Structure formats: structure tokens, C-alpha cells
């Protein structure tokens, strides 16, 4: 069905349709030079359809044709997604570069999966069995994983397997099964299927309470503000506070099967770093390159803004797809504020009634619905899979009292708030240990982390008091508490992302070190003077700092451990 353009304003086109239009269906605006620009219907009023165009609208004219489709904006799912670098609409960027060179070109689209790659398929069920949506028909190896080929998720009836492919190598376009429904209609199944990105994909027996710790190997997160598999968390922080670096470290070290990085409206350079480095980095757990477990969705700030809005949904859908195979997936979105701003831009052009700071009134529900796509599932075959979502938030002026941060805090399970004061003082990761929180239980006994936190809090109170009464007005005991709090911060909570050893601390080492740290924090040190207290704490801090840099079970590690133990035994004397 066709229509014609009656208005163009920014990335919004209004078209007059001469037939049926579906909300959220896609359309193509035909520019007069032949380019077909992908768009999505986002409002229908009478015969007028408002479309957001996923490209620059430069050159479109009133009177140009719009081709309306029935399908919604979708991604293709199948083997070959891992290791890919896609734009927000799932166009593989390396292939686009091979075809058009340095620049992206409006209207150039490439299918998300290669039609040439052959995958060695093994069937999981014989012909004659009855199956339904999400049941496994067979599998292919994809890197280190067994990629299950499923009955397409939208086929929610019961089907009889009429035919299933012999073991052999097939492309994603080759039929691998023939299914028949109760009315005798037959369906040809291939290894790829489409799914609309804005509809959650979660076929399961039930949703589980997320509770398995997701170890990121970042001490302040795992020990103090843990994340769990299937949970959600957010990282708000002013510019330059370290949100992206934190996500980059997490994407390297997190103990999950698959990581999806959604670079949403941020810098292209940051994506380049990842895509140049990951293929070279070996994942110690698998011995393979990190890229084999990673998918990058990249819609940088200079790319069209409507595609930015779509990119987080594209990422979520790919994550949900691998969750359906019983895998643990981590989706890191940087930054959800850019996604919210994309909504704001579109909403403004549609002249919708604005809410706070001109964000649309539906901002909160969209944010909630996005994080709802995370979760741990008991799948229909009894296995479990999870999708964890961590999103950064970039609040205007670094002030958390703004709509996106506030709406996010209402729905997530953990809050890692970055502080300007900490990043200015180069205390990385700059997660504020006093303001942040997590509703989850991690690898450290909650009672112990509460004890450590209490000292941190008291130390902070003493420091504040000291700004009023000075050091001389502070008792030696209080002064010592402040020093201990500093020690905990400097030697445990802070971590050097650029040191090979310190960058990632495995769970078991964290538990061991945390116990030592807690012992020092609670150690009754007999000191008479403040300077003596300071010198003692400088000494133990120096030991712990060097301990952090020592690889586990090396001679150096053992030597420092002995020094620490004797410091503890002698109570610092």
C-alpha cells in the first residue's frame, strides 16, 4: 500500500495513506534519486500517518511516495549473530564498509545474517513429533556455544514435524524442517526467523527470582553493590565520571556467557576501542577471543536519532534470543539517556504534551518496560537462562534529580551512582560507596559488608566533623576511624583498571581479601597520637595496595600476605 508525503520536519514525515495503516509498522520513503529510507509509523490520525525516518530526511519532498508494509520493525535471529558489529537496525557495519567505504549511506541496508555461511546442523527430534514455539528442532555449533535452532517463536500452535534435515551443512536460508499444523497447513522452517524488536521475547514456564550473583570482578560492585543474573542495574553519573570505562571493564571480565554492548547515542571512538581490542583479547575462561561472546550494537551520536531509539530494543531482542537457549546474557546499554532524548526529540516534533524537562509523559513507562525485559527464566525445556540489563544514565548537569535517573531508579535492582568528587580525585571506579545501593545479595556475607560500610560511614562523619572542629578537635579514636575508612576505600573499593592483575579480582580472591580488610578495619590498634595512627595506616595501606598488584599465588603475593598477617597479629606494633 502506498501513500504520499505531505510534510517533513526534522526526522518526522507525515504521509497521507490510501489504505490500511498499522501502528508501529515500517514504511519506506522513496527519495527522488531512488534511495528508500526506512521509517516506522508512530502515530495515525485519520488518513495521516506520522513516520519517524531512520535516516537523514535531507532531499525528501512533499508528494514523494511512501511504501507502507504490514510488518513491524524486526531483527533476524539465527546462528551468526555473535561477534557481529551492527548498527541500531541490525545492518552489519563491516559489510556496509566493504560495500560503500568510509561513510554510511542513507537507504543502504544489508541483511543481519550471512546467507553464505554454512552451519553444521544436527537435528534434535525425529519427524513425527509434536512441537510448538520455542521447542528445539536441532542445533549448530556457534563458536563456544551450542546454538539451538527453535520452532519460530511466533508459531504458537501445535505442529507435527513432517520432515527434518539430515545432519549436514546448511545456510540460514536452507529449509531444515517442515511443520504441519492441525488444519493441515505446512510451514517451511529455516535456521533464521524474525522477531519485532519492541515485543519482549520470553517464552518460559515461569519467571524466576533472580538471585545468582553475577560476578563482574569489580570489587566495589561484587562486594558492596552486587548484581545478579537476570537482574537490572543502572550507572548514573556526570560526564567523564567513568560510566563507559566501567561498562568496558565489565564487558571484559563479567562471568556470563554472552555480552551485548549497545552503544546508544555515544561516541564512535569508544566503540572503535572495543571492536579493535576485543578480537585480540583472550577470554581466560574459554581460551577464545572475547569477540566470540560479544555482539556490538552501535548507534553513535552522529547517526540518525530514530535509529538510536530502536537500537536498545534491537540489543534487548538479541539478548532475549540467546536467553531462550539457556544462556546467561548481559546487556550493557550506554547511554539510556540518549535513548530517552531520542524519544524526546520525536515527541517534540509530534507536538505531544510535554512532561518534565520536555520529556514525553510516557517516559517512565518506556523505561520500566525496557528494564522489564531483563529476567531469569525457567525455559520450556526446564533449563534456565537469564538476561541482565545494566544501563548508564547521563543526567543533565550531573544532577540525579532529573526525569530519566528518577524513572530508572524506580525500577532497577541496583544503583551504582558515580560521583564527580571521586572521579576528580581519580578514585576509580568512582561509584559513590555511601549513596549507592543494591537490593541483591552477592558473594560477600551481607553482615560483613554492613560492618565494613558502617566504618565507611563513620569515617565520613568524622571527616565532616573535622572540617568544623579541625584535626586537633578530633579524638585519636575518631581520627583512626577516618583513616580506616580511607584505607578501605583506597585499598579495596578503588581498583586500577589499567593494571593487568588489579583490573579484575575473581570472587574467591575478593572473599579472601575482604576478610583481611575487615579484620584490619576492626583491629583494635593501640595508638596514642594521630601521627602514629597515620603512619600505621600508611604502612598497612602500602602492603594492601602492592598485594592488589601481585598475581595470586606468586611468591610476591605470599610474601605480602605474611607481612599483612604479622601486622594483624601484632596489632600494628
Amino acid at each position, binding site marked *: 500500500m502506498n501513500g504520499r508525503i*505531505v*510534510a*517533513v*520536519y*526534522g526526522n518526522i514525515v507525515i504521509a497521507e495513506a490510501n489504505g490500511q495503516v498499522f501502528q508501529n509498522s515500517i514504511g519506506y520513503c522513496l527519495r527522488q534519486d531512488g534511495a528508500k529510507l526506512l521509517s516506522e509509523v508512530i502515530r495515525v490520525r485519520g488518513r495521516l500517518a506520522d513516520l519517524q525516518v531512520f535516516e*537523514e*530526511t*535531507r*532531499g*525528501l*519532498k*512533499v*508528494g514523494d511516495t511512501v511504501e507502507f508494509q504490514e510488518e513491524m520493525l524486526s531483527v533476524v535471529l539465527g546462528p551468526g549473530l555473535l561477534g557481529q*558489529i551492527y548498527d541500531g537496525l541490525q545492518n552489519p*557495519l563491516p559489510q556496509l*564498509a566493504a560495500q*560503500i567505504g*568510509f*561513510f*554510511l549511506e*542513507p537507504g543502504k541496508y544489508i541483511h543481519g545474517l550471512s546467507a553464505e555461511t554454512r552451519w553444521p546442523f544436527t537435528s534434535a527430534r525425529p519427524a513425527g513429533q509434536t512441537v510448538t514455539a520455542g521447542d528445539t528442532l536441532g542445533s549448530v555449533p556457534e563458536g563456544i556455544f551450542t546454538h539451538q535452532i527453535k520452532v519460530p517463536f511466533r508459531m504458537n500452535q501445535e505442529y507435527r514435524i513432517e520432515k527434518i534435515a539430515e545432519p549436514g551443512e546448511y545456510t540460514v536460508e536452507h529449509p531444515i524442517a517442515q511443520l504441519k499444523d492441525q488444519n493441515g497447513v505446512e510451514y517451511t522452517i529455516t535456521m533464521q526467523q524474525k522477531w519485532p524488536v519492541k515485543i519482549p521475547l520470553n517464552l518460559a514456564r515461569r519467571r524466576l527470582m533472580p538471585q545468582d550473583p553475577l560476578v563482574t570482578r569489580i570489587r566495589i560492585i561484587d562486594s558492596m553493590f552486587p548484581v545478579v543474573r537476570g537482574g537490572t542495574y543502572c550507572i548514573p553519573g556526570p*560526564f*567523564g565520571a567513568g560510566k563507559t570505562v566501567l561498562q568496558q571493564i565489565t564487558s571484559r571480565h563479567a562471568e556470563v556467557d554472552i555480552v551485548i554492548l549497545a552503544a546508544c*547515542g555515544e*561516541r*564512535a*571512538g569508544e566503540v*572503535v*576501542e572495543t*571492536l*579493535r581490542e576485543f578480537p585480540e583479547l583472550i577470554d581466560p575462561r574459554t581460551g577464545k577471543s572475547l569477540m566470540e561472546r560479544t555482539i556490538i550494537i552501535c548507534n*553513535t*551520536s*552522529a547517526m540518525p*536519532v530514530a535509529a538510536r531509539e530502536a537500537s536498545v530494543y534491537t540489543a534487548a531482542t538479541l539478548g532475549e534470543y540467546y536467553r531462550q537457549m539457556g544462556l546467561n546474557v548481559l546487556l550493557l546499554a550506554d547511554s539510556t539517556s*540518549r535513548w530517552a*532524548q531520542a524519544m*524526546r*526529540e520525536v515527541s*517534540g516534533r509530534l507536538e505531544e504534551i510535554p512532561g518534565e*524537562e*520536555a*520529556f514525553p509523559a510516557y517516559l517512565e513507562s518506556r523505561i520500566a518496560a525496557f528494564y522489564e525485559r531483563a529476567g531469569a527464566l525457567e525455559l520450556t525445556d526446564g533449563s534456565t537462562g537469564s538476561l541482565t540489563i545494566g544501563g548508564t544514565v547521563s543526567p*543533565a*548537569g*550531573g544532577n540525579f534529580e532529573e526525569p530519566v535517573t528518577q524513572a530508572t531508579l524506580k525500577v532497577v535492582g541496583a544503583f551504582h551512582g558515580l560521583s564527580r568528587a571521586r572521579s*576528580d*580525585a*581519580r578514585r576509580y571506579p568512582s561509584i559513590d560507596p555511601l549513596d549507592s545501593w543494591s537490593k541483591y545479595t552477592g558473594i560477600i556475607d551481607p553482615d560483613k559488608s554492613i560492618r565494613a560500610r558502617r566504618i565507611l560511614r563513620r569515617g565520613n562523619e568524622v571527616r565532616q566533623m573535622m*572540617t568544623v572542629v*579541625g*584535626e586537633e578537635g578530633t579524638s585519636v579514636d575518631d581520627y583512626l576511624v577516618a583513616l580506616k575508612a580511607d584505607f578501605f576505600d*583506597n585499598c579495596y573499593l578503588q581498583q586500577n583498571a*589499567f593494571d593487568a592483575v588489579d583490573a579484575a579480582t575473581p570472587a574467591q580472591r575478593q572473599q579472601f581479601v575482604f576478610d583481611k580488610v575487615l579484620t584490619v578495619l576492626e583491629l583494635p590498634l593501640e595508638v596514642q597520637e*594521630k601521627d602514629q595512627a*597515620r603512619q600505621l595506616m*600508611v604502612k598497612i595501606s*602500602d602492603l594492601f*595496595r602492592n598485594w592488589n*598488584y601481585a598475581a595470586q599465588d606468586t611468591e610476591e603475593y605470599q610474601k605480602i600476605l605474611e607481612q599483612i598477617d604479622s601486622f594483624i597479629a601484632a596489632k600494628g606494633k
Partner: protein
Amino acid sequence: MRKYYDEITRIAGNVITVTATGVGYDELAVISSKRGTSLAQVIRLEGDQVSLQVFAGTQGVSTEDRVQFLNSPMQVPFTDDLLGRVFDGACRPRDDRAILEENKVSIGSPTVNPVRRRMPDHMVHTGIPMIDIFNSLVESQKLPIFSVAGEPYNELLARVGLQANADIIILGGMGLRHDDYLKFRDAFEKGGVLGRTIMFIHTAADPVVECLLVPDLCLAVGEQYALQNKRVLVLLTDMTAFSDALKEISIIMEQIPSNRGYPGDLYTQLARRYEKAVDFDGAGSMTILACVTMPGDDVTHPVPDNTGYITEGQFYLRNGRIEPFGSLSRLKQQVNGKTRDDHRAIMDACIQLYALCRESREKRDMGFEMSPWDHKLLKYGSLFEKKIMELSVNIPLFEALDRCWNILAECFDPAETGIRRAVIDAHWPKK
């Protein structure tokens, strides 16, 4: 023969609406009025009503004036004849020399495919320790100087521009004072780089909207040179003037402002320009240094705030010094691991200690007793300021690192610096 349209139905602010058909979005037009001609750009199509932003402003435009559409977006000539030339915000010569018409390229080219970018790894040596040690500048970086009126930000921009050793320097002036423009010219002339400089200058006396095109003109030309394997440096001053012009247009277009009158797409508009900074995989590079004056010295103001979220760090210029706090080069870790093995350790330790020194100063100013530790910090702070922070200091990186070690050794015991033992052992100055 191109068609004229003369039914202007609305004139408001710097926007006119004309009845016309067959017009493309973003297309350029020429408006001829009694006052002369001006370029205008299509910013909205609605049936046969075409809205255009008029770069020279609408003063004196009448409902009878003629609008002629050019069937293309704004273009800029790209030839080596540009070198040494000066243009205004509408790309007209400002130097009484010939109008260039050859080889026109459209401004606002599509986005660079991220996979065709390479990881930047060439450090730009500036001779300023606060940059070279603490926040190294890297080729292809996009970096603003945050400052306020009265600070020598244009001087700093020119100084870095000269020391950066680029193949092509492009200066974009927005709302520039005429004498500032002359200062740039003098600096480039004295530095002997005028022959590889191109300037697009919008001065405070020119129509406000004309500054909107300046960044795009600079970046379009710069990008072409970068594609020809050149290392391009673009200097933009002042991006706050550019943002204010955006604000003006959006208000006239009755867009709902998001924050202090600025449009909701300010981030996108700025990002589309700054993201042009690039190190091509298989061609040259373009570095962008911009100046952003902060209204009311407030970094949370929407212009610096959005800029900070886009650029790869920022330098705060305050009291004639580059502030160690807040100033940040996000690309520094791409280069500072390969300079000298103590570079990073010095970078971290000196700043952490300087932060502690500031705390001690606060305590002192409140009249509290100073501990021996406080005294060490105070001594360190004043040495550091004098020998490293002053903008007049102009020394190479290694010399600056050695100077830092000497300052540390003069003030502290090794363990007090928080620097790991191995580095201390290798570098601590022997008495």
C-alpha cells in the same frame, strides 16, 4: 531557468514561510530583497508551505521578495586555493579575493562508518605539562576548552594550534570579536602557518544565524583534506555562540525547549559536529579543539554540559591556568602508556596529592592547626603550581616528568606518595 517564488506568507524572527512546491528538505535558497541577497535553508515542509531560516536575518524582508531554490544543500568549494583564505559564515570571501566556485562539496556529509575509524594513538606534544603529562592530547581527539570571558582561551587555542604540527589548520570563528580574529591571524602569520590555514569567520557584527554554518563549513573542508591523507586541525571558537543561534531558531519554530530555552536536540546537533573528528583507517585525520565559554561560569549550563557528554574530555581554563581537577583527556591512556614507564604513576600521584593539598589549605584557611603531614602537602602544592601548572611553562614531556619527581622527593617520603614500589625504585631521585 530556475523558478522564483514570491508569495511569502509569514516572517517571524529569522524564519520566513513561502508558498512553493517541489522543494527538498534541507535545501538551500536565495532570498533577494531590497537589502540585498541572503542564503536560507529549508527547515520545514508542510503542504505547499516551506519554512526557511534566513542566514542574514529577516530585517527588511517583505512579503513581495523573491525566493529562488538551489536544488541542493549548502555547499563549499574544495580546492587548494582555499589555503590562506578567509571567508565569512556564508562562505563569501572576507579578504577581497576571488569567489571560489570549483569542486563544490555538500556540508553535513553522512556519518563515518565506525569500522573505518582507527584507534587514535599519536600524541600531540604541546609543551604544556598540564596537557602533556596529565591530559595528553591525541590526534583526532575532539576536545573543548571550558572557560569564561576574560580568560586567554583564544591564545591557548592558537598556541596549541601552532605547536600541534598539523598539515592543515582550519579556524572557525563564531561571534568572534574583530580584534580576536586579527590576533589569530597574527599568531598564524608569526608561526609561519598562514599558508596552510583556512578561516571561516563570523564576527559579532554579522547576523546571528550566519554563525550556524561555520562549524559545518570548517568540518566539510577538513574532512575532504583528511580523506586526502592530511592531518587536519580544526579550531572552533566559540561554540556557545553557535548553540545560542540554534536556540534562537528553535524558539522561532515554536519547539518546546528542554532546558533553559535550548532545544531538546542540542546534544544531537552538537554531537553531529564534534563526531566529525576522526582518524580514518586508510586516510588522514581531523582533530577538533573548540572553545566553550560557560555562561555564569556554570559547567552545568546546557552548553558546556552537553558538550562534556560529547567530547573526549575537556580543559578547564581558569585564572590563566589549566585546572587539574575536572580537566580530562579521555584518550590519554591510548598514548601515555607508551611514553615513559613512570608517566601514569606520576600523573595519578601528583593529582591525588594536589587534591590533598587543597584540603589542607581549606583547613588552614579555617584557622585549624596544621599537622606535619599538612605542612608537607602545603609545600608540595605551591611547588607544583609554580613549576608545573603555570601556563608560561613550556618544556618537553620527559623534562616535565623529571621535574615532578624532584618536587615529590623534595616534599615526601616515597611511601607517602602512594606510588607502587617498583616505579619508586626506578625513578626516585637519588640524593
